[in-house]
Structures are given as structure tokens and as C-alpha cells.
């Protein structure tokens, strides 16, 4: 049994009076798709931010690929192979799709200020290979023909894909997707499910936060259910669907989610 890609132990963070995440422990084994679900305000996004270095945990430990990474800045974690997308899409205005994705190659390219200013042959070669890699990924996601469009002018669903592409070209060991289906229509959501599946098939481990039960249930191998920052349940989709606590907190919540891809809360 190889070591899990991500291992979280006793993680906790409070904002003022609110205990957003409390004594949370779980692990993400290599190669799986793991989903974190829970009603609004359950602390899913906070958990993501704690894990990916966008917020500092008060307590607990985060081990990534066998090393303690708690409290490391986000760019450091990215450098160690953790890539993420955002709930509110974070694309750079004024840059084309390709340029946006190219930023994802940052940690795989070397050229510094001077080399870049002088366009040294090595730099040119490096950037050429980077472009090729990015174009491949764009093709893989079916965005090839949009490469030169301005990213922020694309349709919402396509912008999400661009973010995904940017994360993929980082060649991460762990891919964090923060509500990847938010704001997508049914078709797009189904396509996304397929895409995530294909990505995972390449051996990439995926951890996602998602509201869309349909998506979660049909793609994820493991599911972690949060409620008020604590773990309610953890297990494979079938087990979760039967778990009484899960059913209670969801039915307890006014806008309950049923395992039906047609309905979703955003």
C-alpha cells in the first residue's frame, strides 16, 4: 500500500466566532478521485484553501507526497505539484487562452529576467516546447480552436475548462477542483464528468469540492461529507448515499440535494 498523496490530520481553522474547519482528518490515496461534499457553509472551500496554502490552519498537519507542508505559501505548494482551480474563475484579463494556460508551465520553465530579455536560444526553445505542451492540453480539452481568443471573453463553461487546462499543464501530482461544475448546464456537466474521468485515467489524483450530487456520485471513488466543518461520513458513493447522517443533514437543509443530476444547488 503506497503512501497517500495527501494526508490531513486534525486540521482546524476558526474565523472569529466561526469554527470553519474542526479537527478534520482524511487522506487521498494516489490515483483516486475523491470528492468533498456538504451543505453550504460546511467549510469545503475553507478546507481547500487550508490544504492549498491560501489560508493558514490553526491546528493540525497537512502531508503532501510524504512531506509536511502545513503553512507553506501557495506558490510553494504549486511548486511541489499541487494544482487547483477556483470557484470564482481566476483568469488573467487581457491575455489569450493560450497565454493563460502558458502561465501554468511556470514551474516547468527556467528562463530568468535576463535570459528572457535577451531571447537566448535556450529560452526560445524552452518557450516553444511549452507552447506545444499547452496546445496539446487545449486540444485534449477541446479548446484548440480558441487558443488565441481572449480568455475572459469566453463562455463561462469554456473559462472553467481554460482554468482546468492551466492546472493540468502544471503536471501536478494532485489536482484540486473547487466546484468545477458550478454554473455549468447539464450537457457541460456531463462533458466535465467525462473529462475528469479521462484526466484521472492518466493516473492523476483528483480532489474536488462539488455541489452537484449527480457528478459526484458518478465519477468519484471516495466521498468525504462535511457538516459544520466536521467530518460526517467518509466512504464510497454507495455507502454515502445510504448513510443516515448524510441523508439527515441534507434533508435537514432546506434546499436538499437528491442524487439527481437534473437538480443542483449552486
Amino acid at each position, binding site marked *: 500500500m503506497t503512501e497517500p498523496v495527501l494526508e490531513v490530520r486534525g486540521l482546524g481553522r476558526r474565523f472569529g466566532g466561526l469554527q470553519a474547519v474542526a479537527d478534520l482528518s482524511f487522506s487521498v490515496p494516489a490515483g483516486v478521485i475523491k470528492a468533498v461534499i456538504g451543505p453550504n457553509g460546511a467549510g469545503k472551500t475553507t478546507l481547500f484553501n487550508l490544504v492549498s496554502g491560501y489560508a493558514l490552519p490553526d491546528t493540525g498537519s497537512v502531508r503532501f507526497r510524504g512531506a509536511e507542508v502545513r503553512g507553506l505559501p501557495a*506558490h510553494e505548494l504549486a511548486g511541489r505539484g499541487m494544482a487547483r482551480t477556483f470557484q470564482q474563475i481566476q483568469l488573467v*484579463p487581457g491575455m489569450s487562452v493560450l497565454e493563460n494556460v502558458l502561465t501554468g508551465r511556470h514551474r516547468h520553465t527556467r528562463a530568468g*529576467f535576463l535570459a528572457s530579455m535577451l531571447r537566448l536560444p535556450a529560452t526560445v526553445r524552452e518557450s516553444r516546447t511549452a507552447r506545444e505542451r499547452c496546445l496539446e492540453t487545449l486540444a485534449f480539452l477541446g479548446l484548440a480552436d480558441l487558443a488565441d481568443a481572449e480568455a475572459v471573453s469566453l463562455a463561462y463553461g469554456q473559462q472553467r475548462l481554460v482554468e482546468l487546462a492551466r492546472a493540468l499543464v502544471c503536471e501536478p501530482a494532485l489536482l484540486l477542483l473547487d466546484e468545477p461544475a458550478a454554473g455549468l448546464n447539464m450537457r457541460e456537466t456531463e462533458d466535465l464528468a467525462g473529462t475528469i474521468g479521462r484526466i484521472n485515467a492518466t493516473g492523476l489524483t483528483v480532489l474536488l469540492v462539488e455541489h452537484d450530487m449527480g457528478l459526484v456520485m458518478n465519477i468519484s471513488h471516495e466521498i468525504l461529507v462535511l457538516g459544520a466543518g466536521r467530518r460526517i461520513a467518509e466512504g464510497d458513493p454507495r455507502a454515502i448515499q445510504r448513510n443516515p447522517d448524510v441523508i439527515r443533514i441534507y434533508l435537514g437543509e432546506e434546499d436538499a440535494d437528491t442524487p439527481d443530476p437534473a437538480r443542483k444547488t449552486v
Partner: protein
Amino acid sequence: MAARGRGFGFTAGLAAAIVLVQIAASSAHKVFYLTQLTMAAYAMLVVLGLALLMGYAGQASMGQAGFFAIGGYVAAFLTTFNLGPRRDTLLVSLLAHAHLLVTRPDGSGGSVTHVQPWAAALFAITLAAAIAWLIAGPVFRLRGHYLAMATLGFGIIVHRIFLGSSYFGAADGISDVPALALLPGFAITGRAASRVSNYYAAWGLVLLTLWMLTNLIGSRIGRALRAIHGSENAAAAVGIPIARFKTQVFVLAAVLAAVAGVLLTHYNGGIGPSDASVMKSVRYVAIVAVGGMANLRGALAMGTVLTFLSLRGYFGSFDDLVFGGILLAMMLFAPEGLVGGAIWRRLRSMFSGKRRGDDRTGA
């Protein structure tokens, strides 16, 4: 890549224009026009650096004249301050042994012994870079207005120090700065004899800088900087070390300003506190803004025209008024600048009701 293609095209066109102007001026026996064009060129070095820092990396600096002044004043001081009387002090004798001292006659029959101009220039630029590097750390923990205040404050401090210290000539500044000999037979000086060569030197430097910065913007670094500007979250998510890049680009801009300061000081044979004033810093920011923030060429084009006309006293006592007016008009109606047709795209998007990229100039 597209950026490169355009970059070359523009650079080539600019080079042609530079030669064209010189030929036109010489053949029309109006070489003197090159004076203000040369001075404008050096100002453009500051502007290009600031455009990179402000327009692409999105970090406003309201104290760029400070770095210009550090370069100019330090070079001027080292090349005019007479070390003759201090010959026996350790530092001076060391300099002497390193052949870093020269002696020249001063105005009043005596002679001054001072540091080699090129050595002084190198020192001045290095010093500016070091200062930039030192303050970058704390400065870039600040954002928005706080960042503006910090850089503004830096500019004011530099100005007051030069204005207050008699070593730097207080209100009179420093004059009688010697020529800066770079190659045998070529020196940076305002003398009419070497006007054409200096014109080419200045604009050659501008061309080189433009080319290098265009490369930089098209490179991974440039993308990283723009990513930092557009979304620091996104930048961090792909592993871009934001703090380090902000520092590096800040230092780069400071170095360009200092280089301009050194060369223009030698060209003018002096420098005064007005070159370090807040108003100068504001002017640099304004030129970048008028050029369209993230638009090196726009800044270069608009900046050259405005600086040239202003230096020629074209606007008389309405100089600042014209300047402020243009600045306002541009910021209101074409925040992305006239050059590069950004304004047309903007107008279209206005009519189509969208206002995307309205905040492209955001800090």
C-alpha cells in the same frame, strides 16, 4: 510568436524613424532639434521601466523620479566633488591606486580630482538598484493606496535629502558635471559637436530597452507579471513567487531610471532638485498612463511627443495645464491608450454594452 513579430516590426520602424529624423534634421541644418529629442529619449528610459512595473506588473510607483535622481545626483557628486584635499585618506588613496581617479581643471584655474565618470556611473546605478531591492520587500507588502503612499513617500524623502544637503548643492543642484567617456572618441555630453552621436546613443539605448522589455513581456516572466497583475491567486496557484517577481521588476525599473539619471546628468552637465520632485514622478506616471498603461509603444510615442514639446517650451506657461488636460482626457476616454487601437476596441465594447477590461489598468 505574434508578440515577437510585432515587436520586431515596431522596433525596425522606430529605428528607421530615428535615422530619418536625424537625416532630416541634419540636411535641414537644424541639428539642434536633436537636443530635446535626446533629452526626451533618456526620459523615455524611465517611462519604459515604469510602464513595465505599472502597466504589466500592476504596481504603481509614484517615486520613480527618486531613482532617476539617485542615479543622476550620485554620478554628479562623484564626478565633481574634489577629492584632492583628501588625498591622504584611506578610501581616496585606494581609489587612486585602483586608477579610479582623474584630475581636470575647474572653471577658476584650479583643478578637481574626482572619481572616473564611468566608475561613478556604475556605482550610482548599483546604488539605485540596491536601494530599490532593499525597500521593495516592505513596500510590496502594501497594496493600492498604501503602496502609492509608500512610493510617493520614498520620492519625497529622496527629494528632501538632495534639496537639504549642501553636498548635493542644495537648491542649486550640481553643475559642471564632466562628459562621460564611453568609447574612444565618444562621450555622453551636450556639446554641439557630439550632438548627433549622442542622439544615436540615447535612442539606440531606448531601442535596445524597448526590444528587451518587449521580449520580457512575451516571455514566461512577462506572463507571470501579468498574471500577478490580473489575479494574484491564479499566479500563486501555478507556482509564481509573487513577492520575488515584484521585487525584481521594481529593481529593473529603478535601474532603468538610474541609468537615465546618470546619462541625462552627463548630457546636461548637471542636475537639480527639480529633477527629483514629486511633480516629476507624477509626470512619469502620467506619461505611462497617457500611453495606455500596459502599452510600451504607446508610452514611448506619447511620452516622446509630450516631453519633446514640453522641453521646447511649446506650451509656454500652459505646460502643466496641457499636460494635466491630456492626462485627464486619456484616463477618462481611453484608459488603454490611443496607440494600438485599444480605444476602438473599447468604444465597440461600450456600444455592445460590455465594459470588460475596464479595470485593465487596475493596481
